[in-house]
Protein backbone atom coordinates (compact mmCIF):
# COMPACT_ATOMS: atom_id res chain seq x y z
CA UNK A 1 0.00 0.00 0.00
CA UNK A 2 1.25 3.49 -0.90
CA UNK A 3 1.38 6.39 1.56
CA UNK A 4 -2.12 6.80 3.02
CA UNK A 5 -3.96 10.06 2.34
CA UNK A 6 -5.06 10.43 5.93
CA UNK A 7 -3.31 9.01 8.95
CA UNK A 8 -4.89 9.09 12.38
CA UNK A 9 -2.22 8.20 14.91
CA UNK A 10 -3.02 7.57 18.60
CA UNK A 11 -5.50 10.44 18.66
CA UNK A 12 -7.10 11.24 21.98
CA UNK A 13 -9.68 13.79 22.99
CA UNK A 14 -10.69 14.26 26.60
CA UNK A 15 -13.39 16.64 27.82
CA UNK A 16 -12.34 16.93 31.45
CA UNK A 17 -12.58 13.37 32.77
CA UNK A 18 -14.57 12.08 29.83
CA UNK A 19 -12.41 10.53 27.14
CA UNK A 20 -14.48 10.84 23.97
CA UNK A 21 -11.78 9.50 21.66
CA UNK A 22 -9.30 7.16 23.28
CA UNK A 23 -5.99 6.72 21.41
CA UNK A 24 -7.59 5.83 18.10
CA UNK A 25 -5.45 5.07 15.04
CA UNK A 26 -6.45 4.27 11.47
CA UNK A 27 -5.51 5.16 7.93
CA UNK A 28 -7.49 6.12 4.87
CA UNK A 29 -6.13 5.45 1.38
CA UNK A 30 -6.64 7.82 -1.51
CA UNK A 31 -9.96 7.22 -3.22
CA UNK A 32 -11.31 5.09 -0.40
CA UNK A 33 -14.87 5.34 0.93
CA UNK A 34 -14.56 4.55 4.62
CA UNK A 35 -17.49 3.98 6.94
CA UNK A 36 -17.03 5.17 10.51
CA UNK A 37 -19.68 3.52 12.63
CA UNK A 38 -20.55 2.82 16.22
CA UNK A 39 -23.38 3.23 18.71
CA UNK A 40 -24.51 6.68 19.86
CA UNK A 41 -21.91 8.48 21.95
CA UNK A 42 -19.04 6.31 20.72
CA UNK A 43 -16.99 9.29 19.57
CA UNK A 44 -17.55 9.22 15.80
CA UNK A 45 -18.58 12.84 15.45
CA UNK A 46 -15.82 13.90 17.82
CA UNK A 47 -13.41 12.06 15.53
CA UNK A 48 -14.70 14.04 12.54
CA UNK A 49 -14.46 17.25 14.55
CA UNK A 50 -10.83 16.47 15.29
CA UNK A 51 -10.05 15.86 11.63
CA UNK A 52 -11.86 18.99 10.43
CA UNK A 53 -10.39 21.19 13.16
CA UNK A 54 -13.63 22.01 14.97
CA UNK A 55 -11.84 20.53 18.00
CA UNK A 56 -8.17 20.03 18.64
CA UNK A 57 -6.96 16.70 19.97
CA UNK A 58 -5.61 16.35 23.50
CA UNK A 59 -2.81 14.22 22.07
CA UNK A 60 -1.86 12.29 18.95
CA UNK A 61 -1.20 13.13 15.32
CA UNK A 62 -3.36 13.57 12.26
CA UNK A 63 -1.54 13.66 8.94
CA UNK A 64 -3.01 14.62 5.57
CA UNK A 65 -0.63 13.44 2.82
CA UNK A 66 2.10 13.41 5.43
CA UNK A 67 1.39 16.98 6.56
CA UNK A 68 0.40 17.34 10.24
CA UNK A 69 -2.99 19.04 10.62
CA UNK A 70 -3.97 18.16 14.19
CA UNK A 71 -4.76 21.25 16.24
CA UNK A 72 -4.73 23.68 13.32
CA UNK A 73 -7.65 26.11 13.15
CA UNK A 74 -10.59 24.85 11.08
CA UNK A 75 -10.16 27.38 8.28
CA UNK A 76 -6.55 26.30 7.72
CA UNK A 77 -7.51 22.65 7.59
CA UNK A 78 -10.30 23.53 5.13
CA UNK A 79 -7.75 25.28 2.92
CA UNK A 80 -5.38 22.32 3.07
CA UNK A 81 -8.23 20.21 1.72
CA UNK A 82 -10.70 18.81 4.25
CA UNK A 83 -14.38 19.55 3.69
CA UNK A 84 -17.33 18.41 5.75
CA UNK A 85 -21.06 18.36 6.21
CA UNK A 86 -22.74 18.65 9.59
CA UNK A 87 -24.78 16.18 11.58
CA UNK A 88 -27.59 18.73 11.86
CA UNK A 89 -27.68 20.29 8.42
CA UNK A 90 -26.15 23.78 8.36
CA UNK A 91 -27.00 25.90 5.36
CA UNK A 92 -26.56 29.66 5.09
CA UNK A 93 -30.22 30.66 5.45
CA UNK A 94 -30.14 34.18 4.07
CA UNK A 95 -28.32 33.22 0.89
CA UNK A 96 -29.52 31.61 -2.33
CA UNK A 97 -28.57 28.03 -3.10
CA UNK A 98 -26.04 29.18 -5.67
CA UNK A 99 -24.41 31.52 -3.13
CA UNK A 100 -24.31 28.71 -0.59
CA UNK A 101 -22.22 26.64 -2.95
CA UNK A 102 -20.08 29.61 -4.03
CA UNK A 103 -19.26 30.05 -0.34
CA UNK A 104 -17.54 26.66 -0.45
CA UNK A 105 -15.63 27.45 -3.62
CA UNK A 106 -14.13 30.82 -2.74
CA UNK A 107 -12.20 30.28 0.47
CA UNK A 108 -11.46 26.58 0.63
CA UNK A 109 -8.88 24.36 -0.97
CA UNK A 110 -10.07 25.44 -4.40
CA UNK A 111 -10.02 29.25 -4.13
CA UNK A 112 -11.80 30.35 -7.24
CA UNK A 113 -13.62 33.66 -7.63
CA UNK A 114 -16.03 35.48 -9.88
CA UNK A 115 -17.40 33.73 -12.96
CA UNK A 116 -15.23 30.70 -12.34
CA UNK A 117 -16.81 30.20 -8.90
CA UNK A 118 -20.31 30.69 -10.31
CA UNK A 119 -19.75 28.16 -13.09
CA UNK A 120 -18.34 25.64 -10.64
CA UNK A 121 -21.26 26.17 -8.28
CA UNK A 122 -23.80 25.73 -11.09
CA UNK A 123 -22.11 22.50 -12.18
CA UNK A 124 -22.14 21.16 -8.64
CA UNK A 125 -25.79 22.04 -8.11
CA UNK A 126 -26.55 20.13 -11.25
CA UNK A 127 -24.46 17.20 -10.05
CA UNK A 128 -26.34 16.94 -6.75
CA UNK A 129 -29.65 17.20 -8.57
CA UNK A 130 -30.61 20.82 -8.02
CA UNK A 131 -30.37 22.12 -11.57
CA UNK A 132 -32.63 25.10 -12.12
CA UNK A 133 -32.90 25.82 -8.38
CA UNK A 134 -29.95 28.24 -8.24
CA UNK A 135 -31.92 31.27 -7.06
CA UNK A 136 -34.13 29.54 -4.52
CA UNK A 137 -33.55 30.77 -0.95
CA UNK A 138 -32.28 27.72 0.92
CA UNK A 139 -34.52 28.44 3.90
CA UNK A 140 -37.45 27.46 1.65
CA UNK A 141 -35.93 24.11 0.67
CA UNK A 142 -36.80 20.63 1.90
CA UNK A 143 -34.48 18.72 4.20
CA UNK A 144 -32.91 16.56 1.52
CA UNK A 145 -32.40 19.54 -0.76
CA UNK A 146 -30.64 21.38 2.06
CA UNK A 147 -28.45 18.31 2.48
CA UNK A 148 -27.69 18.39 -1.22
CA UNK A 149 -26.70 22.06 -0.87
CA UNK A 150 -24.38 21.15 1.99
CA UNK A 151 -22.82 18.38 -0.07
CA UNK A 152 -22.33 20.66 -3.08
CA UNK A 153 -20.81 23.31 -0.81
CA UNK A 154 -18.35 20.77 0.60
CA UNK A 155 -17.43 19.54 -2.89
CA UNK A 156 -16.98 23.11 -4.14
CA UNK A 157 -13.72 23.34 -2.22
CA UNK A 158 -12.41 20.37 -4.25
CA UNK A 159 -11.20 18.75 -1.03
CA UNK A 160 -8.69 15.92 -0.75
CA UNK A 161 -11.03 14.33 1.71
CA UNK A 162 -14.74 14.71 2.32
CA UNK A 163 -16.25 14.08 5.75
CA UNK A 164 -19.95 13.22 5.82
CA UNK A 165 -21.48 13.34 9.28
CA UNK A 166 -24.68 11.26 9.13
CA UNK A 167 -25.48 12.75 5.80
CA UNK A 168 -28.13 10.08 5.16
CA UNK A 169 -29.87 10.47 8.52
CA UNK A 170 -33.46 11.63 8.50
CA UNK A 171 -34.16 10.81 4.86
CA UNK A 172 -37.21 8.80 3.84
CA UNK A 173 -36.67 5.51 1.95
CA UNK A 174 -36.84 6.98 -1.55
CA UNK A 175 -34.63 9.93 -0.60
CA UNK A 176 -32.24 7.48 0.99
CA UNK A 177 -31.85 5.63 -2.29
CA UNK A 178 -31.14 8.90 -4.12
CA UNK A 179 -28.70 9.96 -1.41
CA UNK A 180 -26.80 6.68 -1.51
CA UNK A 181 -26.57 6.84 -5.30
CA UNK A 182 -25.14 10.34 -5.02
CA UNK A 183 -22.44 9.26 -2.58
CA UNK A 184 -21.61 6.30 -4.78
CA UNK A 185 -21.16 8.60 -7.78
CA UNK A 186 -18.94 11.03 -5.90
CA UNK A 187 -16.84 8.15 -4.65
CA UNK A 188 -16.62 6.68 -8.16
CA UNK A 189 -15.14 9.95 -9.36
CA UNK A 190 -12.18 9.29 -7.10
CA UNK A 191 -13.04 11.42 -4.10
CA UNK A 192 -11.82 10.13 -0.74
CA UNK A 193 -14.70 10.02 1.74
CA UNK A 194 -15.18 9.21 5.40
CA UNK A 195 -18.83 8.74 6.26
CA UNK A 196 -20.16 8.54 9.78
CA UNK A 197 -23.44 6.70 9.48
CA UNK A 198 -26.12 4.81 11.36
CA UNK A 199 -27.85 3.51 8.26
CA UNK A 200 -26.33 0.03 8.07
CA UNK A 201 -27.70 -0.75 4.61
CA UNK A 202 -25.82 2.26 3.30
CA UNK A 203 -22.61 1.16 5.00
CA UNK A 204 -22.99 -2.36 3.66
CA UNK A 205 -23.62 -1.33 0.09
CA UNK A 206 -21.34 1.70 -0.16
CA UNK A 207 -18.29 1.10 2.00
CA UNK A 208 -15.63 -1.46 1.25
CA UNK A 209 -14.12 -0.90 4.63
CA UNK A 210 -15.37 0.14 8.04
CA UNK A 211 -13.91 1.39 11.28
CA UNK A 212 -16.07 0.71 14.33
CA UNK A 213 -15.84 2.76 17.51
CA UNK A 214 -17.37 2.10 20.89
CA UNK A 215 -16.97 4.29 23.99
CA UNK A 216 -14.16 6.21 22.31
CA UNK A 217 -12.15 3.11 21.41
CA UNK A 218 -11.67 1.55 17.99
CA UNK A 219 -13.02 -1.99 18.27
CA UNK A 220 -12.85 -3.14 14.67
CA UNK A 221 -11.36 -2.16 11.33
CA UNK A 222 -11.69 -4.11 8.10
CA UNK A 223 -13.96 -5.26 5.30
CA UNK A 224 -17.51 -4.12 5.99
CA UNK A 225 -19.09 -7.54 5.70
CA UNK A 226 -16.74 -9.23 8.15
CA UNK A 227 -16.62 -6.27 10.54
CA UNK A 228 -20.41 -6.14 10.76
CA UNK A 229 -20.45 -9.85 11.56
CA UNK A 230 -17.78 -9.48 14.26
CA UNK A 231 -19.29 -10.61 17.59
CA UNK A 232 -17.74 -7.67 19.43
CA UNK A 233 -19.34 -5.19 17.02
CA UNK A 234 -22.70 -6.90 17.33
CA UNK A 235 -22.32 -6.80 21.11
CA UNK A 236 -21.50 -3.06 21.01
CA UNK A 237 -24.70 -2.37 19.12
CA UNK A 238 -27.08 -4.89 20.66
CA UNK A 239 -25.52 -5.68 24.05
CA UNK A 240 -24.67 -9.12 25.49
CA UNK A 241 -27.07 -11.98 25.23
CA UNK A 242 -27.29 -11.89 29.02
CA UNK A 243 -28.51 -8.32 28.90
CA UNK A 244 -31.34 -9.15 26.58
Amino acid sequence: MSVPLLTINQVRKAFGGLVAVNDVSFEVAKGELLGLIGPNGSGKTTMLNLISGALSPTSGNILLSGQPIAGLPAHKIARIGVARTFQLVRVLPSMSSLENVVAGAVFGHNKVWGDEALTLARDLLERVGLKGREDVPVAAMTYIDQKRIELARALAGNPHILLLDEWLAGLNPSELRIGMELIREISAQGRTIIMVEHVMDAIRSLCQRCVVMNSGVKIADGKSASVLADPEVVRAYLGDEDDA
Partner: protein
Amino acid sequence: MNIPRNEILTLGAGLAGAAVLAFLPLVTEGFWLSLSVNIMLYAAICTAWALFSGPTHLVSLASAAFFGVGTYSVAIFVDVLPFPALILIAVAAGALLAILVGLATLRLSGVYFVIFTLGLAELIGQIVTWVQTNFGGAIGLYVFTDFTETHLYWMLLALTVVVFLTGWLVNRSRLGLALRIIGNDEAVARHVGVDTARARIILFAVSGAFIAVAGAIMAPRYSYITPDAAFNPMTSFLVVIMALLGGTRRLWGPLVGVVPFTVVMDFISGHFPNQTAVIMGLAFLAIVYVLPDGVTGQLETLFRRRCSLDKSSLATTAEEGR
Protein backbone atom coordinates in the same frame (compact mmCIF):
# COMPACT_ATOMS: atom_id res chain seq x y z
CA MET B 1 -13.49 42.59 -13.38
CA ASN B 2 -16.87 42.94 -15.02
CA ILE B 3 -19.37 45.11 -13.24
CA PRO B 4 -23.08 44.49 -13.81
CA ARG B 5 -24.87 47.25 -15.70
CA ASN B 6 -27.37 48.05 -12.98
CA GLU B 7 -24.54 48.55 -10.48
CA ILE B 8 -22.86 51.04 -12.80
CA LEU B 9 -26.16 52.89 -13.09
CA THR B 10 -26.61 52.94 -9.30
CA LEU B 11 -23.03 54.11 -8.88
CA GLY B 12 -23.53 56.89 -11.43
CA ALA B 13 -26.80 57.95 -9.84
CA GLY B 14 -25.19 57.99 -6.42
CA LEU B 15 -22.27 60.14 -7.55
CA ALA B 16 -24.61 62.49 -9.42
CA GLY B 17 -26.77 62.77 -6.30
CA ALA B 18 -23.70 63.59 -4.22
CA ALA B 19 -22.66 66.21 -6.76
CA VAL B 20 -26.08 67.85 -6.54
CA LEU B 21 -25.98 67.76 -2.74
CA ALA B 22 -22.62 69.52 -2.84
CA PHE B 23 -24.41 72.67 -4.06
CA LEU B 24 -26.75 72.75 -1.08
CA PRO B 25 -24.73 75.27 0.99
CA LEU B 26 -24.97 77.74 -1.93
CA VAL B 27 -28.74 77.87 -1.74
CA THR B 28 -29.38 77.65 1.96
CA GLU B 29 -27.73 78.46 5.26
CA GLY B 30 -28.50 78.71 8.95
CA PHE B 31 -30.97 76.17 10.25
CA TRP B 32 -31.30 74.00 7.15
CA LEU B 33 -27.58 73.80 6.57
CA SER B 34 -27.01 72.92 10.19
CA LEU B 35 -29.65 70.19 9.95
CA SER B 36 -28.00 68.95 6.76
CA VAL B 37 -24.68 68.69 8.59
CA ASN B 38 -26.39 66.46 11.15
CA ILE B 39 -27.97 64.32 8.47
CA MET B 40 -24.68 63.96 6.63
CA LEU B 41 -22.88 63.12 9.89
CA TYR B 42 -25.24 60.29 10.71
CA ALA B 43 -25.38 59.15 7.10
CA ALA B 44 -21.61 58.64 7.23
CA ILE B 45 -21.53 57.04 10.70
CA CYS B 46 -24.55 54.78 10.27
CA THR B 47 -23.38 53.49 6.91
CA ALA B 48 -19.90 52.88 8.34
CA TRP B 49 -21.46 51.11 11.33
CA ALA B 50 -23.55 48.91 9.04
CA LEU B 51 -20.47 47.92 7.03
CA PHE B 52 -19.50 45.73 9.97
CA SER B 53 -22.67 45.20 11.98
CA GLY B 54 -24.93 44.61 8.98
CA PRO B 55 -23.44 41.40 7.63
CA THR B 56 -22.08 40.03 10.92
CA HIS B 57 -25.17 40.83 13.03
CA LEU B 58 -22.81 41.89 15.80
CA VAL B 59 -24.37 45.03 17.24
CA SER B 60 -21.58 47.41 18.14
CA LEU B 61 -22.18 50.17 20.68
CA ALA B 62 -18.61 51.39 20.29
CA SER B 63 -19.47 54.17 17.83
CA ALA B 64 -19.09 56.77 20.57
CA ALA B 65 -15.61 55.43 21.37
CA PHE B 66 -14.45 55.78 17.75
CA PHE B 67 -16.18 59.14 17.40
CA GLY B 68 -14.54 60.43 20.56
CA VAL B 69 -11.12 59.15 19.57
CA GLY B 70 -11.46 61.04 16.29
CA THR B 71 -12.60 64.20 18.04
CA TYR B 72 -9.67 64.03 20.44
CA SER B 73 -7.21 63.38 17.60
CA VAL B 74 -8.15 66.85 16.40
CA ALA B 75 -8.39 68.47 19.83
CA ILE B 76 -4.91 67.38 20.88
CA PHE B 77 -3.01 68.24 17.71
CA VAL B 78 -5.06 71.05 16.18
CA ASP B 79 -2.53 73.76 17.06
CA VAL B 80 0.52 71.92 15.72
CA LEU B 81 -0.59 70.03 12.60
CA PRO B 82 -2.59 70.86 9.47
CA PHE B 83 -6.14 69.50 9.34
CA PRO B 84 -5.54 66.77 6.71
CA ALA B 85 -2.85 65.31 8.99
CA LEU B 86 -5.37 65.30 11.82
CA ILE B 87 -7.75 63.29 9.68
CA LEU B 88 -4.99 60.73 9.08
CA ILE B 89 -4.31 60.55 12.82
CA ALA B 90 -8.02 59.95 13.39
CA VAL B 91 -7.97 57.16 10.79
CA ALA B 92 -5.00 55.52 12.49
CA ALA B 93 -6.40 55.95 15.99
CA GLY B 94 -9.84 54.65 15.04
CA ALA B 95 -8.44 51.65 13.18
CA LEU B 96 -6.00 50.82 15.97
CA LEU B 97 -8.72 50.96 18.61
CA ALA B 98 -10.97 48.79 16.45
CA ILE B 99 -8.21 46.22 15.98
CA LEU B 100 -7.61 46.04 19.74
CA VAL B 101 -11.32 45.69 20.43
CA GLY B 102 -11.63 43.19 17.61
CA LEU B 103 -8.86 41.04 19.09
CA ALA B 104 -10.40 41.24 22.55
CA THR B 105 -13.89 40.31 21.35
CA LEU B 106 -13.10 37.58 18.84
CA ARG B 107 -14.77 34.92 20.91
CA LEU B 108 -17.67 37.13 21.91
CA SER B 109 -20.94 37.20 20.11
CA GLY B 110 -24.48 38.33 20.72
CA VAL B 111 -25.16 40.25 23.89
CA TYR B 112 -21.60 39.90 25.22
CA PHE B 113 -20.24 41.79 22.25
CA VAL B 114 -22.86 44.52 22.73
CA ILE B 115 -22.02 45.00 26.40
CA PHE B 116 -18.28 44.99 25.79
CA THR B 117 -18.52 47.70 23.17
CA LEU B 118 -20.85 49.78 25.34
CA GLY B 119 -18.44 49.57 28.26
CA LEU B 120 -15.54 50.46 26.02
CA ALA B 121 -16.85 53.94 25.12
CA GLU B 122 -17.49 54.64 28.78
CA LEU B 123 -14.04 53.35 29.79
CA ILE B 124 -12.17 55.48 27.27
CA GLY B 125 -14.20 58.55 28.22
CA GLN B 126 -13.30 57.99 31.87
CA ILE B 127 -9.63 57.48 31.07
CA VAL B 128 -9.51 60.71 29.07
CA THR B 129 -11.19 62.58 31.93
CA TRP B 130 -8.71 61.12 34.39
CA VAL B 131 -5.71 62.00 32.24
CA GLN B 132 -6.93 65.53 31.69
CA THR B 133 -7.71 66.28 35.31
CA ASN B 134 -4.44 64.80 36.54
CA PHE B 135 -2.05 65.97 33.84
CA GLY B 136 -3.89 68.49 31.68
CA GLY B 137 -5.14 70.93 34.27
CA ALA B 138 -8.58 71.27 32.66
CA ILE B 139 -11.40 68.95 31.65
CA GLY B 140 -11.68 70.15 28.08
CA LEU B 141 -9.63 71.26 25.09
CA TYR B 142 -10.27 74.18 22.75
CA VAL B 143 -10.51 73.64 19.00
CA PHE B 144 -10.42 76.89 17.02
CA THR B 145 -10.46 76.66 13.24
CA ASP B 146 -11.66 78.78 10.34
CA PHE B 147 -14.15 76.13 9.29
CA THR B 148 -17.76 77.13 8.76
CA GLU B 149 -20.78 74.85 8.63
CA THR B 150 -20.34 74.76 4.85
CA HIS B 151 -16.86 73.28 5.18
CA LEU B 152 -18.05 70.69 7.67
CA TYR B 153 -20.92 69.81 5.36
CA TRP B 154 -18.62 69.31 2.40
CA MET B 155 -16.18 67.22 4.37
CA LEU B 156 -18.97 65.01 5.73
CA LEU B 157 -20.44 64.67 2.25
CA ALA B 158 -17.05 63.58 0.92
CA LEU B 159 -16.70 61.13 3.82
CA THR B 160 -20.14 59.68 3.11
CA VAL B 161 -19.21 59.19 -0.55
CA VAL B 162 -15.99 57.43 0.45
CA VAL B 163 -17.86 55.20 2.92
CA PHE B 164 -20.35 54.23 0.23
CA LEU B 165 -17.63 53.50 -2.32
CA THR B 166 -15.77 51.42 0.24
CA GLY B 167 -18.93 49.53 1.11
CA TRP B 168 -19.60 48.87 -2.55
CA LEU B 169 -16.08 47.56 -3.09
CA VAL B 170 -16.23 45.39 0.03
CA ASN B 171 -19.56 43.89 -1.07
CA ARG B 172 -18.01 42.92 -4.37
CA SER B 173 -14.96 41.38 -2.73
CA ARG B 174 -14.16 38.07 -1.07
CA LEU B 175 -14.15 39.92 2.23
CA GLY B 176 -17.79 40.92 1.73
CA LEU B 177 -18.79 37.35 0.97
CA ALA B 178 -16.80 36.12 3.96
CA LEU B 179 -18.65 38.53 6.24
CA ARG B 180 -22.03 37.41 4.94
CA ILE B 181 -21.13 33.78 5.57
CA ILE B 182 -19.98 34.66 9.09
CA GLY B 183 -23.27 36.46 9.70
CA ASN B 184 -25.16 33.36 8.61
CA ASP B 185 -23.17 30.72 10.45
CA GLU B 186 -19.71 31.26 11.87
CA ALA B 187 -18.98 27.53 12.17
CA VAL B 188 -19.74 26.99 8.51
CA ALA B 189 -17.58 29.99 7.66
CA ARG B 190 -14.59 28.41 9.40
CA HIS B 191 -15.15 25.06 7.74
CA VAL B 192 -15.28 26.47 4.24
CA GLY B 193 -11.92 28.13 4.89
CA VAL B 194 -12.82 31.65 6.01
CA ASP B 195 -10.34 33.15 8.45
CA THR B 196 -13.19 34.52 10.55
CA ALA B 197 -10.97 36.40 12.99
CA ARG B 198 -9.14 38.25 10.25
CA ALA B 199 -12.30 39.14 8.32
CA ARG B 200 -14.04 40.44 11.43
CA ILE B 201 -11.10 42.55 12.52
CA ILE B 202 -10.39 44.05 9.10
CA LEU B 203 -13.94 45.23 8.62
CA PHE B 204 -14.30 46.45 12.18
CA ALA B 205 -11.13 48.51 11.66
CA VAL B 206 -12.46 50.02 8.43
CA SER B 207 -15.76 50.84 10.10
CA GLY B 208 -14.08 52.28 13.21
CA ALA B 209 -11.67 54.41 11.19
CA PHE B 210 -14.55 56.01 9.26
CA ILE B 211 -16.46 56.81 12.45
CA ALA B 212 -13.30 58.34 13.93
CA VAL B 213 -12.94 60.56 10.86
CA ALA B 214 -16.54 61.72 11.34
CA GLY B 215 -15.61 62.62 14.93
CA ALA B 216 -12.55 64.50 13.71
CA ILE B 217 -14.58 66.51 11.22
CA MET B 218 -17.13 67.45 13.87
CA ALA B 219 -14.53 68.63 16.40
CA PRO B 220 -14.41 72.23 15.07
CA ARG B 221 -18.16 72.53 15.55
CA TYR B 222 -17.94 71.89 19.29
CA SER B 223 -14.96 74.25 19.70
CA TYR B 224 -14.63 73.12 23.35
CA ILE B 225 -14.12 69.37 23.58
CA THR B 226 -14.99 67.50 26.77
CA PRO B 227 -14.97 63.74 27.28
CA ASP B 228 -18.69 63.81 28.14
CA ALA B 229 -19.54 65.28 24.76
CA ALA B 230 -17.00 63.41 22.67
CA PHE B 231 -17.71 59.98 24.16
CA ASN B 232 -21.43 60.52 24.62
CA PRO B 233 -23.04 57.04 24.63
CA MET B 234 -26.10 58.62 23.00
CA THR B 235 -24.12 58.69 19.74
CA SER B 236 -23.83 54.90 19.80
CA PHE B 237 -27.53 54.40 20.45
CA LEU B 238 -28.65 56.88 17.82
CA VAL B 239 -26.46 55.17 15.25
CA VAL B 240 -27.98 51.77 16.00
CA ILE B 241 -31.56 53.07 16.00
CA MET B 242 -31.20 54.90 12.71
CA ALA B 243 -29.38 52.08 10.97
CA LEU B 244 -31.96 49.53 12.15
CA LEU B 245 -34.81 51.82 11.12
CA GLY B 246 -33.43 51.97 7.61
CA GLY B 247 -32.29 48.36 7.48
CA THR B 248 -28.81 46.94 7.15
CA ARG B 249 -29.24 44.41 4.38
CA ARG B 250 -28.44 46.99 1.74
CA LEU B 251 -25.61 49.47 1.68
CA TRP B 252 -28.01 52.40 1.35
CA GLY B 253 -30.42 50.99 3.94
CA PRO B 254 -29.18 53.08 6.88
CA LEU B 255 -29.58 56.24 4.79
CA VAL B 256 -33.31 55.57 4.55
CA GLY B 257 -33.42 55.65 8.35
CA VAL B 258 -31.06 58.57 8.90
CA VAL B 259 -32.88 61.25 6.91
CA PRO B 260 -36.36 61.05 8.48
CA PHE B 261 -35.03 60.22 11.94
CA THR B 262 -32.67 63.18 12.07
CA VAL B 263 -35.38 65.56 10.92
CA VAL B 264 -37.92 64.23 13.41
CA MET B 265 -35.35 64.14 16.24
CA ASP B 266 -34.48 67.75 15.55
CA PHE B 267 -38.13 68.71 15.74
CA ILE B 268 -38.68 66.76 18.95
CA SER B 269 -35.60 67.98 20.74
CA GLY B 270 -36.54 71.54 19.73
CA HIS B 271 -40.15 71.35 20.91
CA PHE B 272 -40.07 68.75 23.68
CA PRO B 273 -36.55 68.95 25.09
CA ASN B 274 -37.52 67.28 28.36
CA GLN B 275 -39.24 64.31 26.77
CA THR B 276 -36.62 63.60 24.10
CA ALA B 277 -35.10 60.57 25.82
CA VAL B 278 -38.50 59.00 26.45
CA ILE B 279 -39.64 59.51 22.89
CA MET B 280 -36.39 58.10 21.58
CA GLY B 281 -36.72 55.01 23.76
CA LEU B 282 -40.25 54.44 22.51
CA ALA B 283 -39.06 54.89 18.94
CA PHE B 284 -36.37 52.26 19.54
CA LEU B 285 -38.95 49.78 20.87
CA ALA B 286 -41.31 50.47 18.00
CA ILE B 287 -38.58 49.95 15.42
CA VAL B 288 -37.41 46.66 16.90
CA TYR B 289 -40.97 45.31 17.22
CA VAL B 290 -42.52 46.56 14.01
CA LEU B 291 -39.58 46.70 11.62
CA PRO B 292 -36.97 44.14 12.70
CA ASP B 293 -35.38 44.26 9.24
CA GLY B 294 -35.84 48.00 8.85
CA VAL B 295 -37.82 49.87 6.25
CA THR B 296 -35.77 48.54 3.34
CA GLY B 297 -35.86 44.95 4.63
CA GLN B 298 -39.63 45.17 5.06
CA LEU B 299 -40.11 46.52 1.55
CA GLU B 300 -37.83 43.86 0.14
CA THR B 301 -39.76 41.07 1.89
CA LEU B 302 -43.04 42.43 0.57
CA PHE B 303 -41.57 42.74 -2.90
CA ARG B 304 -40.14 39.23 -2.82
CA ARG B 305 -43.39 37.75 -1.54
CA ARG B 306 -45.21 39.34 -4.45
CA CYS B 307 -42.56 38.05 -6.88
CA SER B 308 -42.65 34.51 -5.52
CA LEU B 309 -46.45 34.57 -5.63
CA ASP B 310 -46.22 35.46 -9.29
CA LYS B 311 -43.60 32.79 -9.84
CA SER B 312 -45.48 30.05 -8.01
CA SER B 313 -48.69 30.82 -9.87
CA LEU B 314 -46.67 30.63 -13.08
CA ALA B 315 -45.23 27.30 -11.97
CA THR B 316 -48.66 25.82 -11.27
CA THR B 317 -49.90 26.97 -14.64
CA ALA B 318 -46.90 25.32 -16.25
CA GLU B 319 -47.54 22.11 -14.34
CA GLU B 320 -51.15 22.09 -15.43
CA GLY B 321 -50.15 22.76 -19.03
CA ARG B 322 -47.97 19.68 -19.13
